[in-house]
């Protein structure tokens, strides 16, 4: 028979497992009961902050984390979460301060180096982020957080390179991990393989059907894969660089043809004009049509 009054450590374990499975509603019910009995329990408060963070309530999570730190200033997990919350709130100077404080206390933690690398990536200090990932992987070559950050660095520096060694290693280590799959989807989308990215995004959504972010991601990729967007693939793939290339090439060809073959130059200039108008007008219209539901 189930114990009707599980002790606090069992309750804590149960709440932690529920949060690991993103079942925040049920976890919150248990947390409410447990916190009524023991309102200053820092471990329960930490799980409450996790629940807030999973439900995208960063302000609530930060309030709880700051409360934990006021009770127990050395609480490692709370300070660690504070770094991530500060990054999400774009308070990067403070995030770096807390991350460095943690790293001075735990100088051999590969996970902490990876967290600091995340701060540096957000601060656009790409070389330092890469160096931090390198240090984390030197301390622990298979560390998943460090591999994930290194994969992101590779993606930022060489988005079209299919040989992303960190991502390959992650895939080999944890092929079913949702974070790895999310990285693969991002890598595919940046490499212009939007159809494959959409397949991955749908698979991720199947695993986390309540995630608003994933629903938006699938919608965006569905919109990008619509048949009417096929003519705009070069612009999707190469962005504004492609627009500039088309403009420069188009103007030069039209002007050069203008003297010898004016009809052809006229037709070409109308075609370029039509393409430009299509690329400006159609995507927002299609987005509104497809994303309104």
């Amino acid at each position, binding site marked *: 028979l189930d114990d009707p009054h599980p002790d606090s450590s069992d309750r804590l374990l149960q709440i932690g497992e529920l949060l690991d499975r993103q079942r925040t509603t049920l976890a919150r019910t248990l947390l409410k009961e447990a916190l009524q009995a023991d309102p200053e329990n820092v471990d329960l408060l930490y799980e409450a902050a996790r629940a807030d963070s999973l439900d995208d309530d960063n302000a609530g999570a930060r309030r709880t984390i700051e409360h934990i730190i006021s009770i127990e200033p050395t609480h490692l997990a709370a300070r660690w979460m504070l770094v991530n919350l500060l990054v999400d709130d*774009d308070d*990067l*100077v403070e995030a*770096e*301060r807390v991350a*460095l404080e943690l*790293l*001075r206390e735990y*100088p*051999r933690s590969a996970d902490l*180096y990876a967290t*600091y690398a995340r701060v*540096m*990536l*957000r*601060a*656009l*200090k*790409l070389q*330092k982020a890469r*160096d*931090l990932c390198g*240090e984390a992987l*030197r*301390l622990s070559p298979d560390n998943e957080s460090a591999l994930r950050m290194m994969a*992101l660095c590779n*993606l*930022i*520096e060489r*988005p079209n390179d299919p040989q992303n060694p960190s991502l390959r290693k992650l895939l080999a280590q944890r092929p079913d991990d949702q974070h790895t799959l999310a990285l693969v989807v*991002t890598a595919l989308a*940046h490499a212009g393989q939007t159809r494959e990215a959409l397949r991955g995004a749908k698979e991720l959504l199947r695993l986390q059907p309540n995630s608003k972010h994933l629903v938006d991601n699938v919608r965006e990729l569905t919109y990008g894969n619509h048949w009417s967007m096929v003519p705009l693939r070069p612009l999707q793939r190469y*962005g*504004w*660089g492609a*627009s*500039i290339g088309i*403009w*420069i090439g188009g*103007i*030069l060809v039209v*002007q*050069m043809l*203008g*003297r010898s073959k004016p009809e052809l130059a006229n037709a070409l200039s109308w075609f370029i004009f039509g393409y430009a108008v299509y690329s400006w007008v159609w995507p927002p219209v299609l987005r509104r049509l497809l994303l309104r539901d």
Partner: protein
Amino acid sequence: MPSVREDLLRPSLSPAATVIGAPFSNQAAVVTAFIGGPLAAAAMFAINAWRIGRLARDAVWIVLAVAAYLAWFAYVAPPGAAMAFKALVVPWLGDAANRILVRLGAMLICLGGMICHRREQRSVDLFGAKRPNGWIIGAALIVAGLAANALLASWFA
């Protein structure tokens, strides 16, 4: 036991230093360059470089771009100047050759900025960081760029 790299534990962000922010979007940069001309394009390049904390590294390209534009302007703008050059390009690009080349230069400066800042732009996209509104600064740079061009034209006329 491997030793720890102390240099990595030195802070890179300081509250007193310039706050690093997301750059203005490439879309704002292209529209600004297209309408505002090379000087507006160079100014947008410089502002984005300053925002992401790499102005010192990009300054040489920005100064070169502005110097090249001013030199070209001084070469073709005075009446009767650069007749050989004009005789060469007008048959190819028509009577609007001057305007086309100015715009071409602006787009090349813009493209240079996009290439220099491609990693930072991609990073901002990947993390979904909020970008500042580029249209207000873009409009201001367009007005300033056109005014500077008019000033230069009257100076060399």
